[in-house]
């Protein structure tokens, strides 16, 4: 899919995703080694965006499995369409059992769910397993099977093996420790907060109308806030939101009034707001 790490960076940038060196290297390796990519990091640093960008670059279809507590095999893998099977049986009352049986367990009655969808077919696909940590431990066992061999066994149909392996991205917010076995099968990538320079480029890309010097100031303020040991540090998504806000307010440069009025865009806890105001001397007016 990619020829070099620089190629990854350049093409992801075309798709509107500015990748750090670490991200580009790991994506390149995931492609070359054919291993799933496990992405961890705080909320709002672009974990899901990465999968979308890779799909766009590769011209692949994005198949998304959103995990939640209680997601199970029938939501993740496949399910038989019971209602349709019942209809089929009652429609053909004169059939022998053998005829009916082979018929109702055929492709027509199979509801494919994301994992099976990603494996079947010849077109390139990117499988995004989002918020893997929200799923129960049993689902991890299922993932292990699918991700190591890229095959799924449906008892009535036989084993379905991927003719073309999808590019797999798993994301996690680390609210639960994923099992060691799952981690072993994946390349691990931690996306943290970007370097100042990269974040400035991201802001400029996402908020094109923003003045260069203002973008610089925005990123510097966010950088200082992150160093403050807050309960919830502002993420890249918040930086971009803040830039949008400033643009909408028509602010030309940062000053106390503007920052104080818009601090709520960046910080989501009242004690964080208080702490930041104190440290930034906002009350010195």
């Amino acid at each position, binding site marked *: 899919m990619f020829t070099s*790490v620089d190629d990854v960076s350049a093409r992801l940038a075309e798709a509107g995703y500015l990748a750090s*060196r*670490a991200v580009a*290297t*790991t994506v*390149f*390796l995931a492609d*070359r*080694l054919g*291993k799933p990519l496990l992405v*961890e990091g705080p909320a709002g640093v672009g974990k899901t965006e990465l999968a979308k960008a890779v799909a766009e670059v590769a011209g692949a279809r994005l198949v998304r499995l959103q995990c939640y507590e209680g997601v199970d095999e029938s939501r993740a893998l496949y399910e038989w369409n019971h209602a349709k099977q019942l209809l089929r049986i009652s429609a053909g009352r004169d059939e022998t059992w053998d005829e009916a049986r082979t018929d109702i367990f055929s492709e027509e009655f199979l509801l494919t769910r994301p994992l099976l969808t990603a494996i079947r077919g010849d077109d390139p696909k990117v499988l995004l397993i989002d918020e893997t940590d929200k799923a*129960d*431990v049993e689902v991890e066992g299922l993932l292990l099977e699918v991700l190591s061999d890229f095959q799924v066994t449906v008892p009535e149909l036989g084993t379905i093996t991927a003719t073309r392996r999808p590019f797999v991205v798993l994301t996690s917010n*680390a*609210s*639960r*420790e994923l099992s*060691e076995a799952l*981690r*072993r099968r994946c*390349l*691990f*990538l*931690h996306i*943290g907060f970007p370097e100042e320079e990269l974040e400035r480029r991201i802001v400029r890309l996402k908020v094109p109308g923003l003045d260069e010097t203002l973008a*610089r*100031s925005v990123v*510097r*303020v966010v*950088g*200082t806030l992150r*160093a403050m*040991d807050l*309960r919830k540090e502002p993420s890249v998504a918040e930086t971009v939101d803040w830039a949008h806000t400033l643009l909408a307010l028509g602010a030309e*440069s*940062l*000053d*106390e009034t503007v*920052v104080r009025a818009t601090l709520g865009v960046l910080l989501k806890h*009242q*004690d964080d707001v208080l702490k930041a105001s104190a440290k*930034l*001397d906002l009350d010195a007016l």
Partner: protein
Amino acid sequence: MTTQAGVAERLTSLVGALRAHGVRIGTGETVDAARAVGELGLADRELLREGIAATLLHGPAQRQVFDAVFDLYFPRGVGGPEQPAAGREELRDRLADALAADDRAMLGRLAIEAVDGFGGYGSSPESDGWSSYQALERLRPQTLMARVRDTVRGQGGATGFTDRLLEDEIRRRIDAFRALVAAEARRRVAERRGRDEIARRAVAPTADRLDFLFAGQDRLAELRRTVQPLARKLATRLAARRRRAARGAIDLRRTLRGSLSTGGVPMKPVLRARRPARPELVLLCDVSGSVSGFSDFTMLLVQALHDQFSKVRVFAFVNRIDEVTGLLEHGRADPEGLGARIQAEAAVTGYHGSSDYGMALGEFAERYADAAGSRTTVFVLGDARTNRSDPNLPALRQIAERARRVHWLNPEQRSRWGTGDSVAPAYAELVEMHECRNARQLSALVARLLPV
């Protein structure tokens, strides 16, 4: 290191060093790392670092150890810089310029020169070495603050509002430079003493394996930042245990109602949800100097878990006991100042300042007897070093009789229990005592011992 065999050997020793630091790496991952090296080539060191990290590591906590070890096994270069080191003043001038411009590459080069020029000590081959402390002491980068600030201001790099951020930013750059110097000094020492030994001894352990009793201020701060994520993990684990424990009797009405969609055949039995009886928790924490790092961390952790329990009460003591539940309340909890606030606002010391478990336990049994009931689990946190005073075993026995369970978490290693003024073995006969030396042990214990 350009030969194939050389790289393979280097990679396996790197893996060996990481394993020695408790990072679990299988052979499969090592092979993947080798394939990654093959794909990426050896030309770009930072690519190599990211590639090997992606294949070998499984979590962000291991990254710090990895970076330090990587620097030893895949060093930036060999030996010192080519040209002889510049004088102290000249180096400071260049450092000030690099800090003002935030030039990372230049800072890296300056760190090399600083260690080479000012970090060497000793003259005989056995006793000489490289010290980052000495280099930084001679160079004193922190004193450049005012100068760098004025330079940046002079260039008009900071005007208006962002001007107030400048000092913090420069401070962070200086800290980054200090880290670079430390890494460089380790590399130079490793050249003399052998990589494997330095990798084992000079690389700091990951935060969760850090001994509570020997952690410095900065590492404790790092540890505090792990409280929230750790609490979230424990909460999910507790919720899962609770769910499993809730599997009970069949709810006939809901099973029959559900069977209507399958033609009256009850395909899925519905189980009756068990009323969750959320347990109560009482913490007795020794907050005297020697174990306060451990107590602070545990108090914060339990507070972060508070919604898992119907009631959490926290008591602190040195030689007198006082309730501090209010000081830990959500929103008020400023983790940094917790220890100081407890000392200031709660009556935890009497006539003297050293810890006395007998007095504290006795006072608890007397004044707060109602805090421990049949649904309460009590955790005592402390090293059981009671400074040769009466351990007051009857008081602990009385608490143990009233409470559902009593656990004692001791931050000292088991082999030191009972040495000196420690009365740990006597207490251990009455209640379960567990060794709890680092965050990893603590989270394992909490997950196991907390009542569901």
